[in-house]
Structure formats: C-alpha cells, structure tokens
C-alpha cells in the first residue's frame, strides 16, 4: 500500500483496469486470458443450469407419459402451449371471466399495495424498535405475540372484516409481508457498526436525522434481504387469499381451473405466478439494490 498524495492506491472499478495496471501497458495477454476465463465460467454456469432444468422437465414428461397421468399431469409441452394460448388470448374455451391480463393485473396491484403498506409500516417500526429502547420494550412483545399466527390464518378474519373484496386480499398480503421486513430491519438496525452510529452522533445527527441519515442507510443491506423475503411472501399470500376471497386474480384462476378439472390451465397459472413473482422481485428489490448497496459495496454481515 502506498500512501503519498499521488501514489495512493485506489481500487479500480473495473477488473480489466486492474489487469492493465498489473502488467506493462503493451502486454495485453493478461486481459485476454482474464476475459476468456470469465466467458468460460459464464458458459459453464449456463450449461449446468440448463442441465438441471432439463432433467426436471424430462422427469415430468416421463412421469406423465409412463403412468398415463396426462389428465392430472399435463406434459411440459402442453403447459407451455397453454401458457402461450392464454397470453395470446387464443383460448378455444375460456372459462375464467376476464382475460389473463386482467387476472394478472389484479393480483399484481393487490400484491404491490399490500407490500407497499407493509414497507411503510415495517421499515420505520423496525428501525425504531432496533435502536430505541423505549419503543423496543413497548412494541417488541406485541410483535412477538402476533408473529406466530400464520399468514393464512388471517384470511377468515379479513373476509369477516372486509367481505370478499380487494381490501381483504390486500390485508392478508400485508400480514404476510410485514413480519419478514420488520424482523430483518430490526435485527439489522441492532447489528450496525457502533462506530458508524457514534460518528453520526458526533457529527451532529440526532433524533430523526440520525435515524434517516445514518441508521437507515447503514441498515439497508438487511432491509434489502427483508424486502426480498417480503415480496416473496406477498405472492404466496395473494394466491392463498384470492382462492377464498376473490373473483379475479391468479389465485382465483387456480381454484377455478381445479373446479373445471383443467390441469393444464392450473399449471399455466402456476407458471405465470412464478414468472411474475420473479420479475417483481427483480425489478423492485433489484433496482433498490443496484442503486444502493451494490454501488457502495456493502453487504449484510
């Protein structure tokens, strides 16, 4: 490590630059070697991932054909065809009311509202419980009593309170998403580097300023883990709630296709939940992550 004002060591952002400074400027063989190595690793990962997925699909196909289960276990190809037909609105027989896009949109909206409400409540509460003894001792026990109640157990109560409505579904989603985000935020807020908090206090941050400008950014790596789990839970809960409390949405599509005894539609709905759930997580949490913790290169301990 060199320290002089000019010779100071700076970690370059790009690996290629590190390679360029490591050897003489004319010798680029190291860069080529590193690039080739990176490509090789990426290709290998792609191939191995494909092998895993292909194996599952093959087993699925085999089980369906070998045991003659196609009525209750349609083959992967049939499901893929069914998904395509749904998305292109080319169903010969559509038994589920509004189009697939309206079902997906309804679910997505409810999931996002429930998840957003959970974030608005769980984030500040988690930070306060993690950092302020008075709040911790008052609110902590309440949360601990509510937490063991499974998310689905709230569905009957939600229906009683809100009827078969969007609100009932949103409430259930909220109850499923709020706890993981709260617990991750609270645990993270307690674990942040005490020196960083001391520095915040010594450099003039107090009360709400300390919470927003120091505790929150320092806790973000944990918050992001919480958001990721919460959004996953939101999708779990939405399907469960819509099965009971709604005439639209992916959950409704799932139960309805069972009533209609159409396994291909049922499995198509499952495929769509997987895709949409994956995408919302990628877009929402991924964007926050790229703009914060990845940019600062910090991670949960």
């Amino acid at each position, binding site marked *: 490590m060199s*320290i002089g004002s000019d010779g100071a*060591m700076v970690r370059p952002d790009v690996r290629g630059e590190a390679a360029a400074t490591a050897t003489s400027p004319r010798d680029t063989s190291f860069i080529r070697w590193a690039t080739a190595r990176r490509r090789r690793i990426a290709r290998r990962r792609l191939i191995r991932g494909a092998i895993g997925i292909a194996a599952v699909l093959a087993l699925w196909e085999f089980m369906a054909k070998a045991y003659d289960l196609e009525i209750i276990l349609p083959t992967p190809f049939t499901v893929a065809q069914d998904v395509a037909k749904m998305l292109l609105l080319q169903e010969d027989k559509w038994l589920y009311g509004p189009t697939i896009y309206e079902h997906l949109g309804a679910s997505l909206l409810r999931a996002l509202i429930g998840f957003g409400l959970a974030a608005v409540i769980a984030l500040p509460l988690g930070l306060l419980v993690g950092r302020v003894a008075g709040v911790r001792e008052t609110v902590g026990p309440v949360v601990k009593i509510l937490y063991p109640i499974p998310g689905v157990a709230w569905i009957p109560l939600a229906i009683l309170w809100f009827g078969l409505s969007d609100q009932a579904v949103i409430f259930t989603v909220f109850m499923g998403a709020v706890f993981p985000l709260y617990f991750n935020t609270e645990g993270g807020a307690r674990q942040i580097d005490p020196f960083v908090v001391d520095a915040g*206090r010594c450099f003039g*941050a107090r009360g709400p300023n300390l919470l927003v400008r120091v505790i929150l950014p320092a806790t973000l790596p944990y918050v992001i883990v919480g958001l990721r789990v919460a959004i996953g839970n939101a999708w779990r809960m939405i399907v469960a709630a819509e099965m009971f409390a709604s005439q639209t949405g992916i959950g409704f599509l799932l139960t309805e296709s069972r009533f209609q005894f159409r396994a291909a539609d049922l499995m198509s709905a499952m495929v769509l939940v997987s895709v949409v759930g994956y995408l919302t997580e990628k877009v929402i949490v991924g964007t926050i992550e790229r703009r914060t913790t990845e940019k*600062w290169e910090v991670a949960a301990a």
Partner: protein
Amino acid sequence: MNVSAAPYVIEARRVAHSYEGPTGWVHALDAFDIEIPRNEFLCILGQSGCGKSTFMRIVAGLLKPLRGSVLLNGSPIHGPRLDRGVVFQEPALFPWLTVLDNVKFGLRMGGWSNDRANTRAHHVLDIVGLARYEKLFPYQLSGGMKHRVAVARAWALDDASVLLMDEPFSAVDAIGRMALQDHLIETWLTEPRTVLYVTHDIEEAVYLADRIAVLRSSPGRIERYFRVDLARPRDRNSAEVTALKSEITWAMREIAALPKEDSAALEGEA
C-alpha cells in the same frame, strides 16, 4: 465557537468511571484531572485498558462519567456536539457517502449551506492530499486513505474547539502510520487546533505532541507529564527524540509496576 474566557479548552476535575467486568468492577478512571490550553497538541499515552478511550468518549459526549466533571470552554458537556471533531479507532466513514459528502456531513448537519460546505471540504481534502479522490466511495480507498478522510471529516469542523483522536492510526502498518502522522502534523501546522490524541505508541507521542500525559491503569489516572519542546517536523532519530523516548519508556515501566486497586480489593464494597 469563538474564543471564550475560559483559560482551558478542556478541564477535567476528579473524573471517575468504572465498568462491571466478568471478575468485578474495573476502575477505568479515578480522580482523573487534566487541563488542556488552546492550540496545544496533547497526547495521552498509556497501556491498553488504562482508560484513555474512556476519557475520550466522555469528552466526545458519548459517555457520562459516574463522578466528576469535564468542562469544555468552561461549560459542562452534554452529549455529542459539533464543537468537537472526533476521529475514532477505525475510520468509521459512512459507506453510502462519497469522500466529499463524508467530509461535508458534519458541516451540513451544522447548518452550513451546500456551497460553503463544499468550499470548506475541498480545502480540507486539499490539505490532507485527497482532493483527487473526492468522488470515490469509501470501499474504493486504501486503509490509509480512509484514515485520512476520517481526519479530514473532523478537521473540516472549523468551529470545533477541540479535535479528539482515539488511536486513529493504530490499525495501520508502521510505514503507513508514519506517512499519516506526517500528514497530520502538516495539517496541524497549516491550521493550528487543540488536539487531544490518545495513543499507546511512545514514538508516535514524541513525534506529535507538545505535551505527553502518561496514564497508569486500574485506576486510570495521569501519573506524569512530559513536555516536548522540539521544533516540527521532528527527526524521528535525533538524539533528543531518542533520549525522550527512553525516558518515557522507563517511566512507563515504573508506572506499569504500580499496584492495582481493582475489583478484588474492592469486592467487599460491592
């Protein structure tokens, strides 16, 4: 903070603080007195666990002593404020802020306008030789550079009447530490400030300080003062420096041999 009527920037009177350890109470500080005049560079020198960091945290306002009082410009200390710039044992930078924003943090919290804070931060980063790196995030810096940013962040508070440094470079390798000490002394010569610098390194104390307070431990208390009347920048290997180092070394050995008055002796009390 303008120049106040108080004769000393920091004045500690009979400060005492104890911790409950696994084997009983440890008296980190007991009957601890000190006076630090304006613009003095004072080093508190002592072995690990002698209570020097405890005193630092008390002055910073992060810790309330069990007994006694510490006056800052004649008034008692109530919690951390921007009238003291603090450098911790680790850089403790805010990883989510760039170098520039880290240095500006205290100024902005103190209500400075963005422009004024920028000017001041640029000036300080220039002094510590980091002007080129102001847009980088802490993870992109080497260890020594992080320590310099931490110094700059505290130094930027030009209203602060004292800079508190708690073994700021103790985690840096020997060569890097010398460079950081050179930077610190250059900065101090450019902008003289009152500095309270805690260290366990005799050479560092002799190189930096106007005055060295040697602490004993259990209970933590100042046993002896040494004045260092040598022009800066000092030659680390000059005869005077070497002589003073060996004198302090002997003194510290004697002090280390003093009987402990810790937990065991006082257990009956508890």
